[in-house]
């Protein structure tokens, strides 16, 4: 969620999020799906800048999602357990 909340107005693609967060596709997509089901994430097909390529699904947090993210307690990487599959940037 942090990756999405850093630039809330920017549309992000699944593979970009995988590269940025280090999550596997099997971890990232269920999270995106749950967020979308709960109305915390919006998704849309974005036409690529390069001609001839198909449209890609892009995601960003909704206002409700951003509010939800801001209400989340901050993760202390030194004491809190790290969610499975997540990489901590030091």
């Amino acid at each position: 969620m942090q990756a999405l909340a850093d630039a809330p107005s920017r549309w992000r693609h699944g593979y970009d999020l995988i590269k940025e967060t280090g999550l596997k596709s099997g971890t990232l997509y269920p999270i995106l799906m749950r967020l979308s089901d709960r109305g915390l994430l919006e998704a849309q097909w974005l036409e690529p800048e390069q001609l001839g390529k198909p449209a890609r699904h892009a995601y960003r947090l909704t206002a409700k999602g951003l509010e939800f993210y801001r209400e989340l307690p901050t993760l202390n990487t030194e004491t809190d357990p790290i969610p499975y599959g997540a990489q901590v940037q030091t």
Partner: protein
Amino acid sequence: MIGDMRHTTATMLLRHCQALAPKGKAQWAEAMARERDEITDPGEALAFAVGCLVTISLERARTIDFLLGEVRWVVSGATGLLAMFALVAVLRMLPAYPQAAMVLGTIGLVFGWCSRLLANCKEWRVVTIAIVMFALSGLSIVAMNTSFPEPPHEALYRALAFEGLVLWSAVLGASLAIATGRLYKRQANKSLGGES
């Protein structure tokens, strides 16, 4: 060569994802397939595809529409068939064994009733009926083994009771599976804030 194979396998797996995706998640499977086009490294593409396949398979299992729908109709059809067989047997038995034919007729009607209830998604009622019928079959066997006067054609009643134990335990198991599956689905939808 190996790289090409990994790319091909990834594409194939993502095609499976699209075929496997439940109705509400079809666009996610499509999105995954399009993301794969952006991945140039074959190993990464394959790992991505495997993860997507696991995700979609779990989504498919979570919605369990395929299981609920098909099992419900199979069990409803099977109980309907049992009802028909019982009623045909009643017609054949009636002249020689009128009392046994009446018992079998009643059982046939109960099977028919269960078939209708299952078709109308009322599995919990079928569970109750199956428990009662299972208990009745068991009690009949106990009664025949105790000091009760032996009914005429005892072997026939005993066979019916044993058959009842087997058939009603099967109906009970299947109805319980469908009913708990539907309950699980409702709770899952509710917890995700969707329709119950």
